[in-house]
Every structure is written in C-alpha cells, then in structure tokens.
C-alpha cells in the first residue's frame, strides 16, 4: 500500500510529466501552435487541482522511503512554480510566433523544469534534491539557447551550462562530505547524526556547509556567484528570462531554507555569519551595477540579483518568522517580476528587440495602458506603497529589526533608495520623453490575461498584505 500512497502523493508531478510528454508528441499532430499552449495550461491546471485536492483531503507526510515530503512548505513553493509556469506560457505565445521557436519542445521543457523545481522544494533527501536540481537546470540550459540562430542565445546557454555544471559539482562535494560524516543522505537522519555524534563543530561540517551555500548561491545568483546572471538573462529569449528569474530562484531558496533549517539548524550562528556579508554584497552589487545599464533585460537581471539579496535577509535572521518573510517576498517578487517582463515581451516584434531603454521613450503617449502597467510594476520593484513590493520589503526589514540586525536593515534600505533611480528612469522615459519613432506593441489576449492577473495581485497584496503573509506562515508552521 505504501507504494500506492507514494504514487498518489507525487501524482501532481507525474501529471505534469505526462503533460510535457504529450506536448512533445502533440507538436507533430496539430498545425496551430496556440493549441499547444492551451493543452499545456489544461495539464498544469489539472495537476494543480490534484495537488489542491490532496491538501484538502489532508494528505501530508513523507513518501518514497522518506525522500519526498508533501508538506505545507513544499506546497507553498509549488504554488509559486505553478503560477510562474502559467504566466510564462501565457506570455510566450506571441513571442514564440515572432521568434519562430518550436512550441512543443519549448512548452515541455518549461514543464520539465517546473517538475524539477517541485521535486527540489519537496525533497527531504540530498540525492532527490540533486535530481530535482539537475532536472530543473538541464531544462533551463536548453531553454536559454532555444533560439538556435541567435548567437547571444547560444552564448547564454553555454555560459549557463558551464557555470551551472560547476555549481552542481559544489553541491555534490557538499553531499559527499555530509555522507562521509554521517552515513546518510536523508536530511532528518543527517541532522540527528550531526547532533548525536557531536559533529556540529567539526571543520568538515563547516566545509560542507560552505559548499552547500556556494552551490545554492550560484542558483539564486548571490553576489560573488552572480557573474552568469546578466549575460544569461540578456541572451535568453525574454519569456525564458522571466521564467528563470522567478522559478529557479524561488526553488534555490526553497532548498536553501530546507537544508539550512533542517540539517544545519544547530549551526544557525555560523551560517548567519557567512550569509550576512553575502546579502549586503548582493544588494550592493545588484543595485549599483544596475544604475549604468541601458538594456532593460540586463537592468532587470541586476535588479533580480538585488532582490535575491533582500530575500536572503530573511534567512540571515535565522528565525522561522524570518524565513516566512522570505517566502512572502519570493511570492511577491515572482508576480511583480513576471509583470515587468510581460511588458518587455510585448515590445518585441519582428526584427526589433525592444530591449533598449530608448525604446520606451514616449510609450505612455501611444500605449497608456501598457505604460500604466509598467509603472505599477516598476513602483512595486522599487518598493513604493500601496504595491506588493513595499509589503515584501517591509516584512523582511521588520523581522530583521526584531532580530536585532538594525544596521543590515539600514544598508538594505539605503540601497533600496538607490534602486529607485533605475526603476523610475524607465517610468521617466515612458512618461516624460517624446516618442522617437513608430512604437507598436505585439499584444495578445493571453499576454493581456497574464498582465491583468499580475497587476491585480500586486495591488491586492499591497492593500491586503495579511492574506499572503498568513498563508506563508500557515504553510511554514502548519
């Protein structure tokens, strides 16, 4: 019976895999590629609904010999991944037609990558975690290079692949050391072995902790390991960039939270000391270098680095409440970032990239709705109330102050003010400059739905912050 229970608990993932596989074959059968997006979205909705039903009937606990957990923590992150995936698909439909990207592979790779992230968030065994991470990473490497004729896309894929493979090696070193110390890859068994054998102070434990932080730091683009992010984000097709800056980043935080809290919970002082300078450096690097960017995708890449730094503050604090504020922040960041990228995607048309800041000049005169949306997302990324971005930063800073990290908050708030320059510069270009030439948007119904959803969520969370925060809190503790 336990096998059957395992199968039921991983059925959302299995359904997604089935959807991805059928999309691959459906690509040969249907002529109109929009059908694939609809079929993919239907599969994702079914999987998400099954997941929701499983939560409703009270299914919880571990499966597959303790390798996989179906708990509130995993489910919160799965909601982030499902939303990212759906928004990406909605935003991609037009872009795929313009760039002539093969739709079947594209959608199925997106779904495979999401399955990898879901496995990461739910993994309670280091090997399962590694498996999920590789599934996610390998799919995103291909997605980054899916525009085969474009040199920059190829460069992005190659860079991402090399540095990603490098970071996987760090993760494996960490896993090996922990296995050598404790004889187990199960997170709970490792934690109890570290405790009972009094290995917490051992230098090898510290070394493996550093390896883990390095590997996860690569995935979420923390400051000394962020070098790949701007080039990859710029070169990859824009919907893929949007997907990469939201999904894999949240997945990196999910595994980081679980490993740090469950395995190295006794070493909280030590990892806080390691992560604190990383958080400051990440915020500083992201905010300062973004000031000089004229390519909007590159600017959003540095912005995404800075936001990873803000989210990291919740982990630096080291309290469960702190991590709840990180989860809250990740959800908010995902929505507003997808929205901002959604507007960038709309500027793309045949033979015109729409990625330069100058392309936004006078956008408000020609397309007031799109400009207003961009305005809201830029305000939210800056952290101006009543948008969700303000709420995310507010809770993180509040928890940090409670935990006594006052100077960390001061530094973060200062850089947050710096970041207002490059976010509001986009707004300035849109509203205060004269249009340089012909600006036409490649609008579509699907992109409209995605942007409407994003903007409504940004405003709703901004006005009723407790909805999301309580959900995050219940997911973490419940």
């Amino acid at each position, binding site marked *: 019976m336990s096998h059957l229970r395992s199968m039921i608990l991983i059925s959302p993932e299995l359904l997604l895999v089935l959807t991805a596989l059928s999309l691959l074959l459906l690509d040969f059968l249907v002529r109109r590629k929009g059908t694939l997006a609809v079929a993919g979205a239907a599969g994702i909705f079914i999987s998400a609904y099954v997941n929701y039903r499983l939560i409703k009937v009270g299914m919880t606990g571990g499966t597959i010999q303790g390798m996989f957990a179906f708990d509130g923590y995993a489910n919160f992150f799965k909601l982030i991944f499902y939303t990212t995936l759906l928004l990406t698909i909605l935003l991609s439909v037009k872009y795929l037609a313009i760039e002539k990207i093969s739709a079947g592979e594209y959608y199925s790779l997106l779904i495979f990558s999401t399955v990898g992230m879901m496995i990461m968030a739910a993994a309670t065994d280091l090997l399962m975690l590694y498996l999920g991470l590789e599934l996610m990473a390998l799919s995103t490497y291909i997605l980054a290079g899916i525009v085969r004729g474009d040199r920059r896309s190829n460069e992005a894929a190659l860079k991402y692949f090399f540095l990603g493979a490098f970071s996987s090696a760090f993760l494996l070193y960490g896993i090996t050391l922990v296995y050598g*110390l404790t004889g187990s890859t199960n997170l709970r068994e490792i934690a109890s072995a570290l405790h009972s054998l009094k290995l917490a102070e051992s230098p090898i434990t510290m070394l493996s902790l550093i390896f883990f932080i390095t590997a996860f730091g690569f995935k979420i683009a923390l400051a000394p390991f962020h070098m790949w992010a701007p080039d990859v984000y710029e070169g990859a097709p824009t919907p893929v960039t949007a997907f990469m800056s939201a999904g894999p980043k949240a997945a990196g935080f999910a595994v980081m939270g679980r490993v740090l809290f469950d395995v190295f919970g006794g070493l909280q002082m030590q990892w806080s000391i390691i992560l604190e300078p990383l958080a400051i450096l990440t915020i500083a690097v992201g905010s300062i270098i973004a000031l000089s960017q004229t390519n909007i995708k590159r600017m959003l890449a540095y912005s995404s680095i800075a936001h990873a730094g803000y989210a990291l503050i919740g982990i630096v604090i080291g309290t469960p409440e702190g991590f709840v504020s990180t989860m809250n922040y990740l959800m908010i960041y995902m929505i507003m970032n997808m929205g901002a990228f959604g507007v960038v995607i709309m500027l793309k048309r045949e033979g015109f990239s729409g990625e330069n800041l100058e392309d936004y000049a006078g956008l408000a005169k020609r397309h007031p709705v799109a400009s207003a949306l961009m305005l809201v997302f830029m305000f939210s990324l800056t952290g101006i109330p009543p948008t969700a971005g303000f709420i995310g930063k507010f809770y993180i800073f509040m928890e940090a102050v409670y935990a006594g990290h006052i100077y960390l908050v001061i530094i973060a708030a200062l850089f947050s003010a710096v970041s207002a320059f490059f976010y509001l510069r986009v707004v300035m270009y849109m509203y205060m400059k004269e249009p340089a030439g012909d600006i036409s948007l490649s609008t579509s119904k699907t992109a409209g739905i995605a942007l409407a959803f994003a903007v409504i969520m940004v405003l709703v969370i901004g006005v009723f912050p407790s909805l999301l925060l309580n959900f995050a809190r219940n997911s973490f503790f419940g």
Partner: protein
Amino acid sequence: MPGTFIPSNYLPIIIICIFATIIGLSPLLIGSLLRPRRSYRQKLLPYESGNEPIGEPRYKFSVKFYIVAMLFVVFDVEAVFLYPWAVAYDKLGIFGFVEMMMFIFILLIGYIYAWEKGALDWE
C-alpha cells in the same frame, strides 16, 4: 576522527580499484624496464595493418554523428537499467514492473519524438 562514519561496505570497491590500477599499470612498467630501446621510423609509425599510413588520423566528420551518439547513450543507459531489473525481478515484483514500464514508456516517447524529428534519417 572519533565517531565518524566509515563506509566499510565500500571496502571491496576500493580494493578492486587498487588492484585494477596495479594490474593495468604493472605490465607497462615491467615492459618499459625490461625491453630494449631501439626505435626507427617504421617502428614509430601508427600501426595500420602493416601498410604505410595514408593521411592524418584527425579529420572532420559529420555533425550528425552527435545525434546518433546521443541516441546511443540514451538507449544504452536504458539497457544498463534493464539488466539489474531483470536479475532482481522476483524481489521487486509488481512495483518494479510498473516502474520499469513507466521508464520504458518515457523513453518510448523520446524515441517517437526523435523518429518524427528525423533524427534517424541520415539525409
């Protein structure tokens, strides 16, 4: 270090590795110590069944071989997984059967995909 986990189950593997290295290297080492060193052109030429070599061994070959090689690796790994499953079939029972069928099903879809995409056509 006291209390450190020592994976004693893996001891035979380490011993095999050590012995394999010794057995592999020792003939080369003994040969290099014992053999006379008299080299001339014919002896240093690459061995091509006694003929004079024609051209360089490095030349460009079609990129299509990559696809063939990739497909080969995929189905090679499938075979590698099938052997231990077949040997332990009695112990794994119906669960192992279902899992292996899922594995083969996923590969089957990959196979159909590769076929339809024309990866198996040389031209």
